[in-house]
């Protein structure tokens, strides 16, 4: 029983709990008219060494470079050469093609799980392009574009997804939980948010050593609610760590809209204000804006001017993962109605406008990428798919718990081998 309410206050108005609710639910017509979309080119660009305060108006603004005609405008235009633009386009298309095939592979029972980043391809690809190859990323599961743009082989990604013999992670991790030191891509964690203070710690280490490499940490809008988000911002601010902290605000966290993480009250970029660090809010479907903002923050960090929080504003165009069906909680047709458009189409239009691209080349590229991804898949499947895994090289699963296998794990390894022998009716390979 609740304690009885004190009678003396009964003339007070009744309190009421506000439970955030997205404006539209399944059955409603999708409607984004409440979303503020400032004109491209309008946001000012402070100096990279500017006081953090000078960036704070940008936390409620939106840095945009590509206008509706695909023209690059305003002070944030990074003025990239056409080759770089074409490379970004290719990587973005590669990611989308890869996502589609791997999604299908999961549906075909070739693996247990997959997650796409449809509609968000510009973010990871342009950020990777803006950073130095020696810089490190502490990603979440929706930044496969970082690996693609850094040249990590598609076959390696697929081997991991299939947990097969070629999997560098030896079948130990859930699909898409990549890790590759050589490409500056830190091991993805299943636990949301943990990577954020880790990125700050890496950046602190780089500063302690007088190195010049910086770090970038990634998090989703939903996961910003975790305590680790606050640890990261606090340590980054206190030690002025050379780190970029990115929030990919795709407006959904499984079935929960971003209002459950506080988006009704403030933008995610605004969190920067409270810590007194630089903050930017960026059109995440605009590859040039993403590039320019990331580069600005990288230059700022690298010149000992401190950390930056960047919100990339975007929309999760598909389900959360292969385990999710978004029609259960949001209107059908929203991806199409989303006002910031498709990042691939926007970058293509820009290149076409520059006379550096055309439909034929576009089609040819699509074909080529389809072939590349298929070829990689064939190659990866030579190493096996998930359902065939799990009884080869059993000793490997007892390694790397510690640098050396202690007695108790060695005993368990013996037992597991004996069990496998019995199960398989042969010596496990």
């Amino acid at each position: 029983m609740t304690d009885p309410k004190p009678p003396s206050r009964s003339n007070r108005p009744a309190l009421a709990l506000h439970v955030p609710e997205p404006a539209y639910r399944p059955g409603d017509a999708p409607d984004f008219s409440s979303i503020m979309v400032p004109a491209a080119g309008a946001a000012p660009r402070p100096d990279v060494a500017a006081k953090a305060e000078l960036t704070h108006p940008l936390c409620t603004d939106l840095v945009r470079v590509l206008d509706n005609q695909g023209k690059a405008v305003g002070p944030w235009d990074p003025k990239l050469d056409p080759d770089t633009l074409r490379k970004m386009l290719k990587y973005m298309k590669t990611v989308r093609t890869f996502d589609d095939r791997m999604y299908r592979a999961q549906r075909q029972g070739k693996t247990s799980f997959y997650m796409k980043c449809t509609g968000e391809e510009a973010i990871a690809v342009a950020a990777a392009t803006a950073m130095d190859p020696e810089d490190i990323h502490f990603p979440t599961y929706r930044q496969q574009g970082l690996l693609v743009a850094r040249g990590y082989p598609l076959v390696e990604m697929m081997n991991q997804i299939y947990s097969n013999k070629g999997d560098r992670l030896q079948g130990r991790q859930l699909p898409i939980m990549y890790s590759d030191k050589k490409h500056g891509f830190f091991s993805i964690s299943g636990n949301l948010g943990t990577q954020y203070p880790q990125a700050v710690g890496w950046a602190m280490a780089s500063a302690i050593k007088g190195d010049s490499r910086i770090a970038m940490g990634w998090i989703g809008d939903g996961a910003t609610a975790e305590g680790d988000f606050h640890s990261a911002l606090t340590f980054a601010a206190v030690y002025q760590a050379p780190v970029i902290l990115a929030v990919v605000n795709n407006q959904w966290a499984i079935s929960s809209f971003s209002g459950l993480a506080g988006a009704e009250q403030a933008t995610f970029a605004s969190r920067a204000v409270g810590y007194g660090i630089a903050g930017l809010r960026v059109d995440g479907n605009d590859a040039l804006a993403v590039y320019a903002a990331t580069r600005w923050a990288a230059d700022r960090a690298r010149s000992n001017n401190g950390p930056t929080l960047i919100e990339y504003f975007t929309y999760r165009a598909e389900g959360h993962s292969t385990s999710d069906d978004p029609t259960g909680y949001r209107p059908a047709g929203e991806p199409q109605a989303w006002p910031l458009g498709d990042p691939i189409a926007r970058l293509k239009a820009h290149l076409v406008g520059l006379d550096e691209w055309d439909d034929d080349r576009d089609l040819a590229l699509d074909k080529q990428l389809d072939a590349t991804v298929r070829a990689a898949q064939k190659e990866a499947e030579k190493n096996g798919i998930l359902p065939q895994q799990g009884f080869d090289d059993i000793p490997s699963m007892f390694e790397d718990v510690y640098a050396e296998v202690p007695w108790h794990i060695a005993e368990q390894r013996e037992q597991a081998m004996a069990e496998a022998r019995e199960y398989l009716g042969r010596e496990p390979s």
Partner: protein
Amino acid sequence: MSATKTTGRNMIQAINDAHRVMMERDPDIVVFGEDVGYFGGVFRATEGLQKQFGKTRAFDAPISEGGIIGTAVGMAAYGLKPVVEIQFADYIYPGYDQIVSEVAKMRYRTAGEWTMPMVIRSPYGGGIFGGQTHSQSPEALFTHIAGLKTVIPSNPYDAKGLLIAAIEDPDPVIFFEPKRIYNGPFDGHHDRPVTPWAKHPSSAVPDGHYTVPLGKAAIVRAGEALTVLTYGTMVHVALAAVEENGIDAEVIDLRTLVPLDIEAIEQSVKKTGRCLIVQEATRTSGFGAELSALVQERCFYHLEAPVVRVAGWDTPYPHAYEWVYFPGPIRLKNALKKVLEA
């Protein structure tokens, strides 16, 4: 109870019904967690509750397990009864400080002035190819904490009855739901077709209110040759192994780990003189160790063979090697033999 109408329910439906029954009876119950409101939870355990009870009694929470437990503490202090969901047991650690330092100790440190009647539910355990972070069985991290009760049901009937008992309990209860058996029992043979609950007698779940008392084990199979102590998914794996190997084992489903039904355990082990303990969790410092120590302390002079533990290995749960990790039929068979032949 025999007069009550029953409905065929799987574990999810039974758990869902427990919520509904209790929310109808007690207006102070609030249910929240990540994705539990409009959508009804990623496993759908809270489906329909928001529709029936409104947005302020069943709602979505920010992705902050620490915030979920922390606000639940405040709600319990006010006089509400929070029943919260942690989406996967593997994600309970950001809320661990609030659970260990606050929830567990509040009654004690306030000499009973503030109590924490709440239930923290979470899907748990492996066998669904969830990899390292959707497969863990962390019960021992809670059984070590004085002030918490830990409950793990193994079938729909118990799930509903235990959850109602947990909600009515004046103390905080950690309620781990073995997700591998949400939709059907599991005999440990991963390579055989899945059986749905419909074919299992415990899926006849009474409508309305009933309880399965906390702290009472169930003898799910009577026998003389040895005693098997287990809980959750492993109840079914153990039963299957016992039958397949034609062993006259007494299988005890503990249901509640703290407080433990020590009487049932002692009585059985003193009768059989042999004991096998089966847990899915990582072996070292698992709850099986406590069971082994207790059995040995209390039944030493009746034991004809060493108490044996079957458990998951002391590694993280490896995605592709799920069935090498999982304590399956072969591990069980060998352990049963070891206990019987010693």
